[in-house]
């Protein structure tokens, strides 16, 4: 099995793994649908449609795996370029941190912190410009949505 995987091009290998994960989720989804209750074909309950959808998903996951073993996909790089990996990971981490901190620090502070961190991360050399751009992004966008556009967003410990 491992030998087959190693011989496959990277894109096929990735799609095979995705098909495998899809199959596991589809099976779990189908079993959960069955537990919700199917009813009869003439008198369906809430689980009936997801159950059928789950069965189709299982078949499509298997076909996706079969296709990954046989198909020649368009060329394309899979791996993130080594010199960009750090930036990509740190940016992704900053987005996750923003969503977590939002509940504790509120919109203005969180968006400004995120702005400062990512502006610096993406290559701004000057700290003054970093703070001006970062805080500017956070404050202006938050005000635009919370003020004129009337969107309700989380407020932090200071009430804003």
């Amino acid at each position: 099995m491992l030998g087959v995987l190693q011989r496959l091009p990277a894109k096929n290998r990735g799609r095979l793994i995705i098909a495998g994960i899809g199959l596991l989720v589809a099976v779990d989804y189908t079993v959960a649908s069955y537990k919700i209750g199917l009813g009869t074909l003439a008198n369906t309950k809430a689980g009936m449609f997801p159950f059928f959808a789950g069965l189709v998903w299982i078949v499509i996951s298997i076909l996706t795996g079969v296709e990954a073993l046989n198909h020649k996909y368009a060329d394309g790089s899979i791996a993130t370029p080594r010199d960009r990996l750090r930036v990509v990971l740190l940016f992704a981490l900053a987005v996750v941190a923003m969503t977590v901190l939002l509940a504790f620090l509120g919109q203005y502070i969180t968006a400004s912190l995120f702005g400062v961190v990512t502006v610096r991360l993406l290559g701004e050399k000057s700290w003054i410009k970093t703070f001006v751009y970062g805080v500017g992004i956070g404050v202006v966008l938050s005000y635009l949505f919370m003020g004129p556009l009337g969107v309700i967003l989380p407020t932090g410990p200071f009430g804003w």
Partner: protein
Amino acid sequence: MHGVLEGFQTAISPQLLLAAFIGCFAGTLVGVLPGIGSTAGAALVVPLTYTLSPTASLTMIASIYAGSMYGGSTTSVLMNMPGEASSVVATIDGYQMARKGRAGAALSVMAVGSFIAGTVGLILVSGFAPLFANVSLKFGPQDYFALAAGGLVVLARMSGGSAMSGLFPMMIGIALATVGQDAISGTNRFTFGHYQMALGIDLVPVAVGVYGLSELIFLLEDKTTGGKVIAPKMRELWPTRQEWRRSFAPWFRGSFIGFIFGLLPGPSGTLSSFASYRMERAVSKHRDELGTGAVEGIAGPEAANNSAAIGALVPVMSLGVPFSATLAVMISAMIAQGITPGPLLVTQHPDVFWGVVVAMYIGNVMLLVLNLPLVGIWVSILRLPQRVLLPCIAVVSVIGAYGLRESYIDVYVLLACGVMGYVLRKFDFSMASLVVGLVLGPLIEKNFREGLTLSHGSMSYFVSSPFSLVVWIVVALLVFWKLFSRFFRKGKGTSIGPTGDVERDAEIIEAAAADS
């Protein structure tokens, strides 16, 4: 005709004109900027439209759709970078025109083409939409099931790439649509004990995640982002007499081709622009110049993709079935406004129906009047550094997801969909069928269960009407013919058509142009 006049009466109100203006501006911005795209852009606007009237809200979303296509083509011409898949064709002759100092003329030809396509589309919609609505009044659950499920399968199959590239995400979309309270029995499904999950998974965080957030990571990975921008001067905006004359026939040909594609399931904007380009290669007097900066190569395809956007309104408004991710967002906004799209919309809410159709037309006029003088602004935006642009997009995405229902679950859905979208797109899966599957899932389920109840559990009911039978035969032919031909040929196809991969499409078209 009466409906069109009524639509003009509705649309020419300060609120709707303002909505069309903001929509066109925001749409062009979204199309010009890398990283958002029309679907995520329209999805981000949905929460902001709740305070507007239904017609104004839909007008804004329709204008975003039109504006984003124009914006996407602007980057094709000025940077050789298509903002949308439907703008790929514009890179070939549009960028060549820009290199010859005719960028302004190319943008004008595109804008006038959009206006002409809008006019042709409006005339055709006024004929087709009531016809569709009248026919669909006779539809039963089996017909709606065939239309929604069959249309979704065709969209998934035609979205590009291999057979499973659209079908696999389609099933994820349908599965996500079943999360939350069952509309018929009130039973909670797949909520994991979170009461907020009972409301279901909304389209906005999913669309923004799989299109917007994942695109940010792709932009970060790509060192080549931010190519040279060819800035046109104001005096170059006016095409020459010869350019006007050569654009006229392609505009009309493209408009008709686009409208027909718009009525069908599949990525109609992309398909119609490719079809129009092929048409020009076949019939144009200047076909030898195509690929070297011929005005026909931009006039026809641009008119086609705009006309397709208007044609696609027909199945959305008269049947309630969207065949593209952006139109799925529009359906979602309609439902949020308490409007049920479908055949009764034309009779029960004619003001909404005709108001939106005419507003889309007015949006095209606004694109013509506003966007050409604003070309300098778009060029400046194209020159914005990534370090300012990407944080802005990320912050707006999170605000859009949270602001929808003031729920952190939507923010976590956004993150999860961002990761899922990145991984699936990395391996060439198409996201359109996931988004449309999420929107069509409830409609498919409703008609599936209604059909089973009406037929006392007989599955043969779903092919019992001539319409449903024909739809399923067509779906089977499209799906299995491609599936088997792929397996037999081991994926060595070289036909001209959208593959779903923008770069690959561009290579194919360029190769074809070079051949000619």
